């Protein structure tokens, strides 16, 4: 368990959490990025425009 950085609600975390994973806050719907796993640290996931090169 950890708290949503946007609305503070509880966010449940599954066991095989990975850095870079995006977790949705089921309360406010914000997308949170796992920036660390021991202990789990979540941050607001950045908006990313898709952009492909060659």
């Amino acid at each position: 368990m950890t708290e949503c950085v946007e609305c503070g609600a509880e966010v449940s975390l599954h066991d095989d959490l990975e850095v870079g994973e995006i977790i949705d806050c089921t309360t406010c719907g914000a997308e949170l990025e796992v920036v660390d796993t021991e202990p789990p640290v979540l941050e607001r996931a950045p908006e990313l425009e898709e952009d492909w090169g060659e």
Partner: protein
Amino acid sequence: MTTVVKIGGARAVDPDGALADVASLVEDGEDVVLTHGGSTAVDETLAELGEEPTYVETPGGVVGRFTDERTMDVFKMVMPGKLNTDLVESLHNEGVDAVGLSGTDGKLLCGKRKSAVRVKEDGKKKIKRGDHSGTIESVNADLLETTLAGGYTPVVSVPILGTEQSGGYTAVNADADRAAAAIAGALEADLVVLTDVTGIYEDPDDESTKIDSAATPEEFAAVTDAAEGFMTKKVMAAEEALEGGAASVTVATANADDPISSALAGAGTTLEPGVLEPDGDEKTEQEAAE
């Protein structure tokens, strides 16, 4: 009038016919800027190095290359290194005084670096960091015009000069079709995109359904509906070129005698600036006129 030509790239496109055509155009006093792709060659060199290219899938289902640092090194070796130098050499052998440039040179092509991308990996939504790709936001037209005025023919390769949030610069990968589009817009030039099909077909599997041209938003809708797979990207680039100020965009085959002159004379599929949706004020004028 200047002509920007996009050759090579992922598809095996034989440049020989195109290079001889560039020579005759330049001889007739035409200003020509060449651009080239090369993602297939990047994959081949990665394989020769015993390495695998990394491709990722976005939540929206688009598959694209993830350009990590190592891939970026190989990218610099293949595109501005081998392919660009070979193309310059071949052009000299056609009597064209070519000058090879990459987007990093003189900030020819600049834009924000995208170092993170959203991907779907083993069913999970993720953010993958360490990507080296970017969108082209500016073109140093002055550098191209100075080079052309010197009697040279620029041969432009990605990478572009990516701007970091921290303010620094990093060479990053960018789409070669969109690079050609940005250059054509900046020079208000005719853009000819050479590929291995004779144009955009209404039915992608039936060459006889080739669309000759589009000059209105309605005609352009038929083009965008028809474009599939790799052609979608080219149509998107064509639109960006026209929005940027290009005089026309033609998609045509490289495998013809004078592929560029023929494209300029109507072979292939030509898109005119008229395809663009008139923005606000133009719209009201147009509606008033109807």
